[in-house]
């Protein structure tokens, strides 16, 4: 649902991970993690297993609209999954697809680009 008056980002849809992605996961070129929470509904449900392409700190700049796996800026020992709403020179702005429920950059501000661990490619 688009919210009037707010700039919207193109939300890239996630596909089921193909055999190629699974092969890359087995060989260590991809990582996977399980989603916990409802802030990415309807794209990701709690319990979904997602596959992501790891990004080295300072690596490729993410595309706005893609879904990132990011070190939680409040508790860096845990990871969060959010839509990359915008990219700024200072970092990335995150937003949950479930906007009325999500706790994201609207609360904790712009996140350092080095916190970005990977880009979600699909659901296993």
């Amino acid at each position, binding site marked *: 649902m688009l919210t009037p008056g*707010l700039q919207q980002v193109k939300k890239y849809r996630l596909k089921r991970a193909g055999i190629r992605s699974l092969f890359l996961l087995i060989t260590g070129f991809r990582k996977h993690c*399980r989603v916990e929470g409802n802030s990415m509904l309807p794209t990701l449900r709690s319990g979904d297993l997602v596959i992501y392409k790891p990004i080295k700190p300072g690596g490729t700049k993410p595309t706005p609209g893609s879904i990132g796996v990011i070190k939680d800026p409040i508790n860096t020992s845990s*990871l969060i999954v959010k839509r990359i709403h915008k990219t700024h020179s200072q970092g990335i702005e995150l937003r949950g697809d479930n906007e009325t429920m999500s706790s994201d950059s609207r609360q904790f501000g712009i996140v350092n680009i080095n916190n970005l661990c990977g880009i979600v490619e699909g659901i296993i």
Partner: protein
Amino acid sequence: MLRSALSKLFNILPAQTVNAHCDGPCGVYDPASARVAAEAVLSMTKKLLAMEAPQANDHAAWTVYNNTFARFVAIKEDQAKETKKELLILWTDYFKPEHLASYPDLHDTFWKAAKLCSACKVGIDLAKAEELMQAVEKVHHMFWKSKGRADAWITAS
């Protein structure tokens, strides 16, 4: 078939969790908490204003009076703080920037309501306590309208 088998295998194996944070695990918000606390503030304010001081030389009556007065003040201050806390939760956690489009006076409403909580905590002012109830009622209507509902404003007392 191979894809399906691999998918099942990965789903069985343990995986690192990645949080899709919500404001709360349940996402349950309700202005009723603020309303109950604000009603207590109004009630205690009325009780305090209705208290009559005993005769000057009646020591026992003064002891009871002071004790009751102190208890009423303590409850009033505690409930005023509770009202403010509940309002701030709604303001900072439930309401989001997009709600400003529907409620341009959202920040002003909550700011004034929080100020009224402080005024009711500090003083014994019936007008301020009634204003606080009106402010909480306004928040009640904003909240339920934002959820597409029109729940009636009902008070306990």
